[in-house]
């Protein structure tokens, strides 16, 4: 059976209807959990924006039909009151992110393709039980042109999709939630890949990534990185954390790094190294054309 591929920008903005066919609001966003649950990553909840009444965050269970141009709910009227929210911030679970707010148009790290990219769209596939499974994110200029309605006018930009399991989110919430999720891509990296990742993100995010790893792994990553990048990381860390990382290095390296950190640097290790450390690669996932 051919399964439908959907895009986030294609589904948001659809009317959300009650069982009686009356419009309740518009589909504003979708959430996924980045936690430990096994199996494919499916959409958890729907954010529905409404005028003059509080917005809703609905579990997927209440969706009766996710159609091509509208979403029909199995409940309506007074049954919706329990799903009304005051603010999105308090409504989200600790490991839950909004795909529109925290992923779309944000920067991601493609940890397999080893590059920094901006999300042009989020790609779903409809499962046999009519849920939406997140396949990955589309990156590159082709998706941008399509969203601008220029996809056919300016051809030549192919689809480039990064699998959901292979990316690290850099949006504030996405980054923090993924750091707290042991199964996330950032925790499966070896020292060399971790070194490359911390070389690309901003210094504060990089030190948070290193702090989420054991000192031994952080030490290996610092040693694997360009010396200037390693120095920038260690200087940005709290002194005790930096000392722990240095202590986890082999003796000779630890001595050298201690000496380096003790001296006042002329440039504080600020070398603008971002993509030099990784080759650029494109990798298309096989499957239905987006």
């Amino acid at each position: 059976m051919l399964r439908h591929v959907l895009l986030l920008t294609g589904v948001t903005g659809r009317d959300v209807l009650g069982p009686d066919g009356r419009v309740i609001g518009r589909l504003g966003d979708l959430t996924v959990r980045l936690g430990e649950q096994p199996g494919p990553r499916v959409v958890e909840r729907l954010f529905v924006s409404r005028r003059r009444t509080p917005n809703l965050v609905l579990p997927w269970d209440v969706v009766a039909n996710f159609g091509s141009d509208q979403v029909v709910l199995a409940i309506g009227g007074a049954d919706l009151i329990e799903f009304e929210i005051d603010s999105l911030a308090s409504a989200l679970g600790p490991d839950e992110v909004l795909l529109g707010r925290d992923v779309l148009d944000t920067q991601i790290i493609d940890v397999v393709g080893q590059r920094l990219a901006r999300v042009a769209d989020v790609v779903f596939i409809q499962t046999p039980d009519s849920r939406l499974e997140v396949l990955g994110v589309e990156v590159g200029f082709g998706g941008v042109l399509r969203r601008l309605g220029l996809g056919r006018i300016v051809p030549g930009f192919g689809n480039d999709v990064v699998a959901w399991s292979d990316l690290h989110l850099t949006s504030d919430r996405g980054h923090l939630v993924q750091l707290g999720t042991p199964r996330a891509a950032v925790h499966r990296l070896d020292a060399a890949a971790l070194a490359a990742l911390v070389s690309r993100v901003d210094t504060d995010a990089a030190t948070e990534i290193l702090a989420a790893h054991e000192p031994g792994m952080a030490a290996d990553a610092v040693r694997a990185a360009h010396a200037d990048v390693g120095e920038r990381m260690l200087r940005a860390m709290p002194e005790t954390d930096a000392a722990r990382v240095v202590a986890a290095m082999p003796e000779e390296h630890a001595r050298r790094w201690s000496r380096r950190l003790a001296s006042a640097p002329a440039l504080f290790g600020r070398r603008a190294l971002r993509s030099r450390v990784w080759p650029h690669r494109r990798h298309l996932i096989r499957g239905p054309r987006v």
Partner: protein
Amino acid sequence: MSSTARRTRIAALLAVVGPGLLAGLSDDDPAGITTYSVLGADHGYQLLWVLLLSTVALVIFHGLAARMGVVTGQGLIGLVRQRYGVAVGGAVLAALVVANIGTTCAEFAGIAAGFELFGITRYISVPSAAVIVSLLVLRGSFHRVERLLLLVSTVFLAYIASGFMSHPDWGAALHGTFVPTMPMTGEAIAIVTATLGTTLAPWGLSFMQSYAVDKKLRIEDLKLERIDVITGAVLTGVIGFFVVVACAATLHRNGLHIADAADAAVALQPLAGKAAGTLFAVGLIGAAFLAASILPLSTAYSVCEYAGVEAAIDDPYRDARTFYMTYGIVTLIGATIVLAPNAPLVTILVGTQVLNAVLLVPLLLAMVGLARDRDLMGGFASGRAGTFVYSLTTVVVVVCVVTLGVTTLLG
């Protein structure tokens, strides 16, 4: 403070400085110098207070751009796309690219005019400058590029020297700076708005933020970065002050009118001595060279941020083709238009000035919106007081831009 601590602090400051100085000083480009020259030649010391106002606006918005870059780790156009979507981001980028190409033309026109004062034809000076600025960014490392550009900035000292040589009336200059008075003529309104419009430029704002990101400044650096921003803005204002003073003390006193900065350099020679005129011309060339390097750089950053393509000055060409191609194309178009025999240069320059002014409005509004966004800025989001200051500055700029637009369109 011990000498070691002082040395460490100075080293920290030196490591951070750059974005504020370069973004500020490159605003004193040939268009800016021309505006200041006309301001001084036509109105003497009376409108010097406008420079104080534009310096304050520069401190406020360049400081905000640096803060947004440091906190989010993203450039302005990337953030606009993230917060307002691809359509708004694309429209802003398209206008920015067109305006930047036009402004690059203005910079190369400044290089051409400056060298022609020394008898060097534009067919040698412009292509040479285009090749030099391209090689500088293509072949140089981040820090080498930064140091060279800062070195070029020292040429602005020529304006300060030129101002002193003109023997100005310092009392009248100080009075004009701190006591605002305004002749209510269309000409005066136009030059006041043009001064604000040329100082706070869209490309300067986007460059400031992108460059702070590329330099990998950290939140801990923000205090020192503020010094960098204030120094850059104050120097920008001080240089403008000396240009106005030089022209007020000579051209205005003798009732001479000028059309551009090159005219000013020529007119200064008999009045303030050959050295003053020569220094003025050297300053013009240096200012144009600095801005001609920054403009394509600012455009390249913005295009890459929007397209989602990674780019940094330290990247080799094979890893950052979009970045270097954009830099090269903007430089090439800018230089070619200036050299084209029948190109409508005046129309392009006036159109660019209007486009820059118009673009400033949505860009400032977007910046105020982004600064308030707690999802993006976290604890560094602007509160009520900050938003009031940013909004007030934006309103002043909007009023000026609308007035400039009206006076430009009505001639």
